[in-house]
């Protein structure tokens, strides 16, 4: 009797549709092994069944099918876009910290609201590579190009991946720009891995000249710096701040249009240097925030996961303001959020969702808290207070 037959009979039993023969057989099976009896008991145990049903309902077949069809169309790789850096079980939760009411919501439990009818799709893997004297190359998954000088190959783009030429070449000035609604990941010629979020730029020279490896970054970038004791790695930031890398993994968030820039260190050691020459060394699990209008620097210990979750395809906010959340959403979905009332911006939410959901579903989840209402109008979203 194979497993599927057993499952079939167990199911018939639960429906009260088993024949005498099948009942007898099931009794025999129960006695065969302790685990068999345990299984049937589990199905009648409220806590276990409860837990199992919730686990089962975490998954959404409709969304997954949608993604399957999308991938079929674009013949794109299905597996996770970005390397899993830290393996933490991600749970879909939405909790409001003000008001004290606890809601646990899952995607297919959400009821569509009339106000959010148009579907807003998530961003995509894409970027543009600008090479001095060579023009621009689009870095979508189907992009292929070769950059040459005389007959020497300087660099190649193969299926959206940047590959570098041999060592005896003239240095190339390169800029990778990731527009809104996009994300991109690539490697520098020294093996350093770079993850770029929507609205980011990274400028660098290939190969790295002199004693240091330096790049310029703005927006939100996660770096896993390749070890090289003889060549320190320096990241230049907007406003003439910079980070000197003594270790490996960290996240930078420095959008020129924002006042506060910050960095989160996952592993290793980095030193943040301001335009005035002040230096601050960071240790792992620390967040450094710098206010560019008054040069105030603050360092605090944090759980790094929310800050790097974007590299693993998730939006994670732990008690963040609605303003911060909608800023991140606007860059990824390419929509403008307009607040009717500034006080709404200060509401706090805790969120943990996949970045590849439709924006509508995320907005619906936030609306369930009955603190806020979103209305989509073309490329704008009006945010109002719930009555």
């Amino acid at each position: 009797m194979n497993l599927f037959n057993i499952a079939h009979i167990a199911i018939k039993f639960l429906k009260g549709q088993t024949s005498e023969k099948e009942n007898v057989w099931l009794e025999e099976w129960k006695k065969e092994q302790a685990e068999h009896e345990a299984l049937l008991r589990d199905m009648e145990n409220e806590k276990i069944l409860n837990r199992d049903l919730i686990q089962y309902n975490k998954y959404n077949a409709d969304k997954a099918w949608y993604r399957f069809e999308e991938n079929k169309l674009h013949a794109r790789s299905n597996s996770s876009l970005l390397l899993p850096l830290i393996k933490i079980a991600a749970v879909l939760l939405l909790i409001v910290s003000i008001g004290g009411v606890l809601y646990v919501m899952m995607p297919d439990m959400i009821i569509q609201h009339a106000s959010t009818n148009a579907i807003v799709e998530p961003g995509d893997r894409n970027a543009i590579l600008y090479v001095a004297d060579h023009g621009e190359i689009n870095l979508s998954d189907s992009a292929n190009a070769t950059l040459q000088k005389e007959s020497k190959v300087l660099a190649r783009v193969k299926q959206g991946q940047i590959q570098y030429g041999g060592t005896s070449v003239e240095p190339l000035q390169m800029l990778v720009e990731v527009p809104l609604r996009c994300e991109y990941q690539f490697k520098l010629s020294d093996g350093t891995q770079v993850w770029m979020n929507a609205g980011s730029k990274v400028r660098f020279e290939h190969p790295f000249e002199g004693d240091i490896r330096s790049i310029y970054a703005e927006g939100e970038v996660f770096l896993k710096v390749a070890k090289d004791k003889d060549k320190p790695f320096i990241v230049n930031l907007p406003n003439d701040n910079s980070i000197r890398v003594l270790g490996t993994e960290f996240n930078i968030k420095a959008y020129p249009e924002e006042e506060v820039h910050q960095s989160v260190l996952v592993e290793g050691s980095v030193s943040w240097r301001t335009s005035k020459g002040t230096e601050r060394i960071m240790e792992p699990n620390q967040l450094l925030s710098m206010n560019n209008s008054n040069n105030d620097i603050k360092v605090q210990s944090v759980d790094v996961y929310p800050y790097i979750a974007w590299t693993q395809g998730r939006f994670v906010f732990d008690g963040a303001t609605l303003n911060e959340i909608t800023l991140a959403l606007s860059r990824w979905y390419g929509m403008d959020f307009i607040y009717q009332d500034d006080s709404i911006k200060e509401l706090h939410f805790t969120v943990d969702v996949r970045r590849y959901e439709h924006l509508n579903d995320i907005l619906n989840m936030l609306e369930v808290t009955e603190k806020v209402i979103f209305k989509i109008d073309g490329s704008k979203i009006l945010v109002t207070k719930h009555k």
Partner: protein
Amino acid sequence: MEENNEIDAAEKFLNRKDLSAFKIVYQHYYKSLCFFAHGYLKEDTLVEDVVQDVFTQVWENVPQLKDATKLQSYLYMMVRNRCLNHKRNLGHFEKYSEQELQLEDWETDESMRLIKAEIIREIMDSLEKLPERAKEVFKLSYLTQLREPEVADRLGISVNSVKTHKKRAKDLLKKELKHIFQLILILNL
């Protein structure tokens, strides 16, 4: 009947690579395959990637199965294999022949997990058969922590309506799943 639909769809897919038939199979087994994979890999994004990979693989290389009823075990086998490979980090996938669809070399907890996945799928499928309103009320009452007045508010109906729908769902479930009486008690329906 539902089971026949799924077998018919499996047959259509295996013989003609029919996309809408494949969709039926996909939606029928997606969640239970994920639940099953979760037994091996605890991270949900990874679990869904694995299951998605399996369905993609099955779509791209339609298996040569003699019998449409074997598609179900084929899917579970592939998910199991990818999960085990992932855990052992082998990095290569073996192609299964019909003979390898034997289940003797499984550990007991793996087998139990598979049976559980199928049972849970069946329970949830029964719930799906509830009428729309009763289903909504049932889901909001059970799978969230909202109380009756909050559910009524959310759905724009009266608290009395919520109570009526809950009772209706309870009676229908009692009919469908006679031997899970405790389930109904758990759900406080």
